[in-house]
Each structure stands twice: as structure tokens, then as C-alpha cells.
């Protein structure tokens, strides 16, 4: 090969077109890339949230725009026992259901973390309650809790004969409250279990081996290795879980509609009940706005209390 025979190739650098130059501009890129996300957030989150907060300070009804009334809605709600009942039950429902979901979910995650036959299949089955649309599982629970046609009553009364009358699941206040919490726990366990299972699998086995060599008991391994290592993910999962539970709507609305006599209203169902069927749009908005402080508090609690570094490290005030 003689080099002389070949024409010398010269790299030609063409000037980039205006389009290419435009896309090389950092400021332009930032705007273009952020535009879809920001506009989605503005249109579907910021605007409705802002409108909701604005409505809470008016006396709008469905079919009438309303005028600014300041704190009037909140003043009324402050003296409304039904509102305080909903606040109480929302907090109670969230607290009890969250504890239940985490206790059972963690237990389930620990079981699933063992080597079991058909592990993948089992994990898939565990997810089912969470995959089924909430309204469908709510309808199933509605049948289970039905005053006349409950399967549990049928078994207890007609099959086993251990009861004379049907169970009163949702006919009086406290049984109805507990029944709804049970349904919520059933639905929430898989989310907690699968999330914590993912967390469990990130824990290095060498930690357990070292502990075993030191002669630790199973409880000590859980207490000093598993639990602290899980805490960061626990904090995230708990934040989500509290928010989902506190804002739950479908279960309660499908099973009791807040009844009997408003004893199972959550803030979300009460806001809907007053705002849409009751037509008092502003009051419904005010109830919804009243949820914000609780949600902010729950989020802050999860982040700052559970995710503190010293907790994650297990012990000591270093």
C-alpha cells in the first residue's frame, strides 16, 4: 500500500445547524426537558390543590361559584361533632391499621425470606390483595360484613350452630370501625410485606454469619441486625402506608358510606359526602384541606423520627 496513491483525507468540520446549536444550549435543554413534567405537575397537582384551598375559603356550592368567606367553613367545622368524629376515626384508623399492617407485613416478609418451596409463586400470591382493585375487594368485604348474608354469620349460625344471631359487623359504631380496619389491614399487608422483603434481601448474609459465630440468638439477630438494617426502608414504606391509609376512601365508602350514623367517616369520605352529594363544595374542600396538616405531620414524623442516622446504626448516641 502506498500512501502516495491515496488522496489525503481531510476531516471536514461542518458548522452545526441551528437546530443542533439549539439543542446544545444548556438553558434550552433544561427548559425542554422539564417542560412536560412541570406542566403536568402544574396542571394536575398545583392547580387543583390551589383551587381546593381557595374553595375552602368560599361558600361555593355545586351550581354556584360562591364568595370569599374567610375562615367561616373552618369555624363551622370546628364546632361540628361529625367533623371531629371523622378526625378521630381517621387518626385511629390510620394508627391501628398501620401498626397491624406493619406487624403482620414484617412477619410475612420474614417468613418469605426463608428458603421455601415455590418461593416465587408464594410471593406472587401474597401480592394478590394489593393487586385486586380496591373497589372489588371492598365489595367482597361488604358481602362478608352484610347483616343478612355474611358468609361468616352463615358459618357460625347455620353450619356450626355456635351462635343464635348473625354477627353485627357494620350495624353499630365500634364493630363497624374494627371491621373496616380489618379490611384495610388485609389489603395493606402485601405492600408492606413485599417492600420489606426487598429490604431484607439487601442485608448482607455475612452479618448474620458473623453474629452466628458470636453465638447470637435468633431474636438478637433480628433485633441488632435485621431491624436496624431495615429502618431506612421501613421509614419510606411507613410514610407511604400512613398517607394511603389516612386518605383511604374506597373501602369505607363502598362498605359503610360512613355509617352507621357517621361513625366510620374518614376525612376523605366526609369531604366527598359534604362536597359532592351534599353539594357543599366549599365545606368539602375545607375538610380536605384540614387533612393537609395531618399528612405533613405524618411525613415529617416518618422522615425525622425513623430515618435518623443513629437509629440506622443500631445504638449509641455517637
Amino acid at each position, binding site marked *: 500500500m502506498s500512501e502516495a496513491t491515496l488522496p489525503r483525507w481531510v476531516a471536514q468540520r461542518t458548522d452545526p445547524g441551528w437546530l443542533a446549536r439549539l439543542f446544545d444550549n444548556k438553558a434550552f435543554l433544561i427548559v425542554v426537558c422539564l417542560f412536560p413534567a412541570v406542566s403536568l405537575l402544574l396542571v394536575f397537582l398545583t392547580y387543583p390543590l390551589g383551587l381546593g384551598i381557595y374553595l375552602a375559603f368560599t*361558600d361555593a*356550592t*355545586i*351550581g*354556584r*361559584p360562591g*364568595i370569599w368567606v374567610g375562615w367561616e367553613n373552618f369555624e*363551622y367545622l370546628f364546632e361540628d*361533632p*361529625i367533623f371531629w368524629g371523622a378526625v378521630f376515626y381517621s387518626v385511629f384508623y390510620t394508627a391501628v391499621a398501620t401498626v397491624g399492617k406493619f406487624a403482620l407485613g414484617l412477619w410475612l416478609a420474614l417468613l418469605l425470606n426463608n428458603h421455601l418451596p415455590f418461593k416465587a409463586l408464594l410471593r406472587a400470591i401474597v401480592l394478590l390483595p394489593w393487586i385486586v382493585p380496591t373497589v372489588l375487594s371492598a365489595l367482597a368485604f361488604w358481602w362478608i*360484613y*352484610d*347483616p*343478612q*348474608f355474611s358468609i361468616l354469620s352463615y358459618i357460625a349460625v347455620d353450619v356450626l350452630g355456635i351462635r343464635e*344471631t*348473625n354477627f*353485627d*359487623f*357494620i*350495624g*353499630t*359504631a365500634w364493630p*363497624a370501625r374494627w371491621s373496616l380496619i380489618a379490611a384495610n389491614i388485609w389489603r395493606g399487608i402485601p405492600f408492606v410485606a413485599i417492600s420489606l422483603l426487598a429490604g431484607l434481601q439487601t442485608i448482607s448474609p455475612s452479618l448474620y454469619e458473623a453474629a452466628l459465630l458470636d453465638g447470637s440468638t435468633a431474636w438478637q439477630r433480628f433485633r441488632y441486625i435485621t431491624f436496624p438494617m431495615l429502618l431506612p426502608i421501613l421509614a419510606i414504606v411507613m410514610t407511604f402506608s400512613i398517607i394511603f391509609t389516612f386518605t383511604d376512601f374506597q373501602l369505607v365508602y363502598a362498605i*359503610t*358510606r*360512613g*355509617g*352507621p*350514623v*357517621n361513625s366510620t367517616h374518614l376525612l376523605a369520605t366526609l369531604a366527598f*359526602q*359534604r362536597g*359532592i*352529594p*351534599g*353539594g*357543599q363544595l366549599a365545606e368539602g374542600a375545607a375538610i380536605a384541606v384540614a387533612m393537609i396538616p395531618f399528612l405533613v405531620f405524618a411525613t415529617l414524623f416518618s422522615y425525622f423520627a425513623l430515618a435518623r442516622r443513629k437509629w440506622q446504626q443500631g445504638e449509641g448516641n455517637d
Partner: protein
Amino acid sequence: MANIITRRSLLAATAAGMAATAIGDAGAQIQRKEGGSLNLPIESGASLRMLRPVRFVPADEENWRANCARFTQKTGVEVRSDFVGWEDISQQTAVTANTGAGPDLIVGFNEAPHVYSDKLVELTDVAEYIGNRYGGWLALAQRYGKKHGTNDWIGLPFGSTGGPLVWRKSALQEVGYQAPPDDLPGFLDLAKKLKAANKPMGFALGNAVGDGNGFANWIVWSHGGFLVNEDGSVGIDSPETIEALTYLRELYPNFIPGTTAWNDTSNNRAYASQECWVTMNGVSLYFSLKNDPATRAIADDTFHTLLPKGKAASTPNAGLTMNAMVFKHSRYPNAAKALLAFLLESEQYDPWLQANLGYWSQPLEAYTASPVWQSDEKISVFKDTMRSTFWNGYKGPISEASASATNDYVLVQMCAAAASGQATPEAAVREAARRAGRYFRRRG
């Protein structure tokens, strides 16, 4: 009054639809007074859009569309009818009224024309013309049609669906009754005897919009109580209401257990499964039983009677009423009015009424003679639904506040709290007055 579609009611509806098409000739029995005239020059190039609540039975929609097509044939005005879900029609009416755009006319429910009266075309000429031809408007139709305290019509009621007592003859005979008594002590006695015979009655006291409110209204009205005073202020806190709740306290222990958790379908199910022997419902329950071979025997044993009057002069039951209105924003108000008049003429209205099998009851005297009320003697009680002198929000002016109080279960929860012993009658009434006061407050 429960209108949730179940497999069974769907079957019933299909069967009913087939039966309806078999019913033949229109309007033969309807007495009409000729004369009078309606001067509505139809605008050139007019076309109309109408909203209506969805049907009970398929034949309803077919008939309605066929009647509108006849109007098009006769006048050249295109009519588009849209059928809207029951829960949505109030909201859609609100949007239409406020934006001043959308359908020319809406057939809404109960109070809708009164809420938006300043956005509506007055319909007095149509109402007087039609009323004159067909023996006059019935009491409930006048109440829902006319602006409060005037003779100006803003709505044209098309029909109403009520909820009488639905009861099992065999159960009543077993405890020595031929029919439910019309007085309150007698009704309580019946309840006790049925309970003792283990064939209890049951009425919804849960958050059931139709059944729960119907029952709560009956309890209060039959004792002479009422939610609203004539001037629109809250009048629930009265000795009559307390008496009503005291009565309910005695009545409630004789119900089938669990009615505080009942929704609109619960009483239908309990009745169909023979656990509940007397309840209150629209005609749908009877048809669903009748059209299912498995429950045919229950239907044969089932009868309807108006709710006990108690201390009221007429039966305390206000039917859910379809109420048509024409919006001022319509470019063709005359065409819209002509269409409503056309639909209420016997050539159109009677076949439609028959197609509905008794689910809707007529607003005009002359249609009492419609063959639909002879088609099955057990449903003939429904023909008087619109003779009721009670309405939603009785005794006040019709307003959105009474609709809100209904949808927020103010009276239902008052009854449930007192019945279940959660509150004394006095406390339950005070709480209801407090809640109603919020809805009925004057706005600046």
C-alpha cells in the same frame, strides 16, 4: 326505589321490555278535552339537545326516542336525547345552568328548576294548555312545577316514582292481618306480631339515598313533623318530631337486625331471600321477583299498599319526580316548549307510560285511566304517586338546601341515632336541626 342493576333486575327489565312492545294501541282510554291552543312558532332551522335520566326498562328509552323522532317528522326539528346516570344529572344541570351552554332542555329531578329558576324559560303557557287538556296537574306536579307561591310554571313534571309498603300476604295473615293498618299504633302492633312470628319487617336506616330518606320522611311526616317551615327556616325541632322518634324507638326493635347498615339494595335482597316480610320500595322489587322463576312465588304473595297515613291527611310519601326545564340560553325556546308539549300529548305520553310498566307515574289527571294501571292489579297503587301533598323539603319552598339535606342523610341519621339508642330523641332532633340549619342558612 333502589335502582341498582343486578342480574335479576336486568332479566326483569328485558322481559318487561318484551312485554311492553306487545302492549298495543296508544291513548285510546285517555280522555282529552279538545280546544285551547298553543301558539309556539318554531324557529327556522331549529334543532334541540336534551338530557334525561337513564331508563328503568329498555322500552322507556326506545319509546322516548321514537316520540322524539315523530316530533322531528312533524316539525323538522332535529332532537338529540342523551341519557345520563341518576347521580350525574344534578351536577350536569348545574354546569349547564352556570355556563349558559349545552343542552337546550334537561329533564332533571325534583327541585332542579327551582334552583336555577332565573336561568329558565317560563313554561306557564305549555303547562296551562296541557293541564287544561288532560284534566289538570296532580298535587305533586303542581308543587314541583310552579315557582313557590306563584302560578308561574318553571318545570314540567313528567312522572314520579314512589315507595309504598311492599308486603307478604301470607306473613300478615299468619299474624291476623289482611292488610297493613293505616294508623300508627296498629302498624306498631303489626311489627311486634311479625317479629314474634319470626317474619320481621325491615326499613333502611343506613346511608341509603332513596329508601333511607323515604322511610325517615314517612316517620316524621306521619307524626305531623317536618324539616322545613313554610318560610324556609328549619322546623325539625318540634314535639311532633320527638314523638315520631319515640315511636320509632318502639318500632325499631321489631325490625330485622342490621337495618342501620342497609343501603338501597339491602331491603330488596332481604325481601327476595324471605328474611324480611314487609318493607318499603318502588315497583322494581316486585318486577324483579315476578320475572325470575325462582322467586315467582314470592311475587304472587306480594302486595303493595300506601304507607300508613298516621296523623297526616294524605300518605306521607314524596315520589322522586322527573322535572323538565328549558334554558334561556337555548336559541330555540319555542321548539323546546313545543317538544315538551308534544311529548305530554296522549299519542306520545300514554305509550311511553305503558312502556314504563308503572315505574313512572303520571303527573296529569287524565292519565290515571292509562291501561298500564290495569296491566297488573298489584301495581295499581302506584298510579296515585303524584297525588301526594308531601314533597322533598316539606313544608318549605323547594330549594337546593332540601336536596342537600336529603343527600347528606340528615333525617336518616337522626332516625338511626334515635332508633339504635345512640342518642335520645331530643338530642337526635337537636343534632338534625343543627345540621339542617347549615344547609338552610341564608346566603348573602
